[in-house]
């Protein structure tokens, strides 16, 4: 059994990468490997947006991330600087900066790069998508 951290730097629906990250995570847990955490950075932070409206006949990646996280107890972490500059803010940060709306799903944690370092120290491998 190996332990993995996934680094997702790709936005959803702008290529296959974010979806591939999800498929990798599913394959890993099905093979009894451990996913220590999934860290969303750069454009990947957009995966955390709760405001995505996906046509019902298309795969809903956002929903899939949340389900995977809940079923296998995998933390979903979004880099706060990468996210906020892309309009992905949690309720707290939106309130603090007098924004009317927030967009980060509560299932995603808003964290710093230090949390990625902690995940890495605890994982056998890092896989970037």
């Amino acid at each position: 059994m190996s332990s993995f951290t996934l680094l997702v730097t790709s936005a959803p629906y702008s290529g296959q990468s974010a979806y591939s990250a999800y498929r990798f995570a599913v394959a890993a847990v099905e093979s009894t490997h451990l996913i220590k955490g999934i860290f969303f950075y750069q454009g990947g932070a957009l995966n955390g947006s709760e405001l995505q409206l996906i046509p019902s006949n298309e795969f809903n990646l956002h929903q899939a991330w949340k389900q995977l996280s809940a079923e296998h107890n995998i933390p979903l972490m979004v880099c706060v600087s990468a996210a906020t500059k892309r309009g992905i803010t949690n309720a707290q940060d939106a309130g603090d900066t007098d924004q009317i709306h927030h967009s980060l799903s509560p299932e995603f944690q808003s964290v710093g790069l230090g949390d990625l370092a902690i995940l890495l120290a605890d994982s056998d491998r890092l896989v970037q998508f």
Partner: protein
Amino acid sequence: MALAMSNFGQDVSLFFIEDGVLQLVKGQTPDTIQHKAYYKTFAALGFYDINNIYVCQQSILERNIEVTDLLIPVTLIEPDQLTALMSESAQVMVF
């Protein structure tokens, strides 16, 4: 990212390859296109104990850049050394 990882006790090596080498070139004036002077951060790498800074010799050659055109002291490497050096790292991130 390198600074954050080093802050949390990771040994960091940096590799500049292909167009990435352009980040290290002296004489940048990012303010003329309303961009942050990101290149100034490179001077801080030493303070964060990041001393393994590798630049692909072929990449700077192809772009007509001399090592004296670079902002910080670096170690030049050949493309075939790249894979060997990278394999010494437990984890690799690409930007």
